[in-house]
């Protein structure tokens, strides 16, 4: 019966991975940017929340309310100040700039906070959950995370397909110059996309930091999980990202059920299998990448 528990936990874990992945997916979908600092930004958000919670009487919930908008603003500024420049130079430049950013963030965090692990204190919520039966329990935190992932993905989907800004964002990703011709300030449009992506990655980082301890070096592995979720699910599809996250989560928990040391490897193997046999992903996007 613990296998069933593994399946349940895997699906719930998928919610967290989907939350990590949608920011990566959005930035790639709109601007063709793969942000190698994506995972490190999540860790940065966690440390920021930690500092906010240490310095003020604010609890975890309010720390989220503070950190997420701050990160959105940070994303807006970084796009207009940094990525805008690198996008104009060459396709390779932005990848290299985000790589440099990743190294800078990691080492700055290391310098400021040291390598010690931290955790965000959410009181007893971290261990509470619904007990279904003797073997299966659904942690409230995991449920909230999964719920948040669904809400964020639905919101993003609606935003992109129905709203004026979302539509112009899709237009700008198709043809930046033509979008300018209908009056879009493409720098602003891209910056909004980055702001949204940063907000989601901050949220993901905080939800992650609530359930496990974190340290400055954890960024790259978060990036890899987000990336695997996107590729497994299918580039260009947000629902695919959710599905990809769940498949990855399942692979990890089921592998761990076989042998605890196989946790990471099983996720990677599923990723490689998708790459080998279905490189377009589980839900390939309708439009040309």
């Amino acid at each position: 019966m613990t296998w069933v528990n593994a399946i349940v936990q895997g699906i719930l874990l998928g919610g967290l991975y989907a939350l990590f992945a949608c920011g990566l997916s959005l930035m790639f979908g709109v601007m063709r940017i793969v942000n190698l600092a994506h995972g490190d930004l999540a860790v940065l958000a966690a440390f920021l929340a930690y500092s906010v919670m240490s310095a003020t009487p604010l609890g975890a919930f309010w720390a989220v309310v503070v950190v997420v908008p701050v990160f959105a603003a940070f994303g807006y500024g970084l796009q207009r100040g940094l990525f805008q420049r690198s996008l104009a130079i060459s396709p390779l430049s932005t990848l290299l700039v985000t790589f440099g950013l990743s190294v800078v963030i990691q080492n700055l965090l290391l310098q400021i906070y040291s390598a010690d692990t931290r955790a965000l204190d959410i009181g007893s919520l971290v261990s509470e959950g619904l007990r279904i039966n003797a073997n299966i329990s659904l942690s409230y935190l995991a449920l909230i995370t999964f719920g948040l992932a669904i809400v964020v993905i639905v919101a993003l989907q609606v935003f992109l397909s129905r709203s004026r800004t979302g539509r112009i964002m899709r237009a700008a990703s198709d043809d930046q110059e033509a979008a300018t011709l209908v009056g879009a300030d493409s720098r602003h449009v891209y910056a909004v996309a980055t702001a949204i992506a940063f907000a989601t990655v901050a949220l993901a980082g905080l939800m992650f930091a609530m359930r496990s301890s974190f340290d400055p070096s954890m960024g790259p592995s978060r990036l890899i999980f987000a990336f695997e979720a996107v590729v497994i699910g299918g580039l260009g599809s947000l629902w695919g990202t959710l599905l990809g996250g769940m498949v990855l989560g399942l692979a990890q928990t089921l592998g761990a059920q076989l042998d605890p040391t196989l946790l990471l490897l099983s996720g990677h193997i599923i990723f490689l299998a998708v790459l080998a046999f279905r490189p377009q992903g589980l839900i390939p996007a309708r439009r040309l990448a």
Partner: protein
Amino acid sequence: MTSSMPVPAARAGSAAPTRLPTQRDGSGGRPRVRRGRRANLWTTAVLGIVVAVLAYAPFAVYTSITDDLVTLFILVTMASMWNLLAGYAGLVSIGQQAYIGLGAYAVLQFSDWGVQPYVGVIVAAAACAVIAVPTSLLAFRLRGDYFAVGTWVIAEVYHLLVERDASLGGGSGRSLTTLSGIDASVREALTYWIALGVTVLTVAGCYLLLRSRLGLALTAIRDDETAARSVGVSVSLAKRLVYLVSAAGCGAAGGLLIVSSLNVQPDAIFSVQWSAYMIFIVIIGGLGYMEGPILGAIVFFALQQSLSSYGVWYLVLIGAIAMASVLWLPRGLWGAVAARTDVRLFPVGYVVHTPTLRQRVAGRIAPAPTPAIAPATAPDDAGEPGDASGPDADRSTA
């Protein structure tokens, strides 16, 4: 200046009758395409002297210096491989640490099987090239930026797989003991020479590769893949070959790492930090130039040494410098030099010599504004004396 141009046939006694139409100033002559310039003979000689001096180093300096130089050589090797991959084949990889790690562990495994570790470095390079074949089948399923992250994931897979092997030390690593019988200073000297040899081989190998047909194909692919394919270049084969060469080079570097430090630790050897080093070195030194990795490695190494007392700040600084480099010096330090001057330590391109410029220089007429074409070297072009006298003859009658 007369209003009429001299007709070639009227210049009796001049060279071959089949000549290109005269230039504006009445000169004639065929443009010549060459690999390099006379100046390159000097740079090759200088490089040879440098290598000879370096080879003598173990007899002349303390081991602390040769140890530092070994580190520098390893960085040059790795960076050259990354530059080959990204700067010439257009494949940006963040996963070359896979082959660094596999190379190191290959030396360890082969030494368990009785292969002398110094020989094992070369065998490890070959082994990595072999492993790269099936790896490339998976990695090449992804394109562009996704390829980059995909290579990273593959490196992680190799990391995890190697860690599962208890005989190779599992998660905590192992030491290389088969060299302990050799006297320390002799061993360090041998390691130094092997490192120098590997680096020279790697750089020379890159140079020869880029001057070969494959190198020409790579330049075509770098400029326009579709156009290259349409003239018959096998793009996928070219990229794969470069990937294999790069894997071999990184495998050798990994072998050198274990041979110089005498132990290996999976987290360290498979760390993405190596890719960071490679990338930063090449960005700062100059992507797409053979001289770039060498210059970048020297700069990087100098920075690393001078900032070592500041802990991880040096990484923050180097990361920031690399970012600034991408934005404001996209062709790197060497690119800035190469754009302004004619210096090429490793001429991998083609140069066109036109007699017109030679005559302009000879006739002390204002030189042409194009800096990329050097004045032709005298001996081979001296066979057309008629040209030099043409415009001067005209001028004298004006």
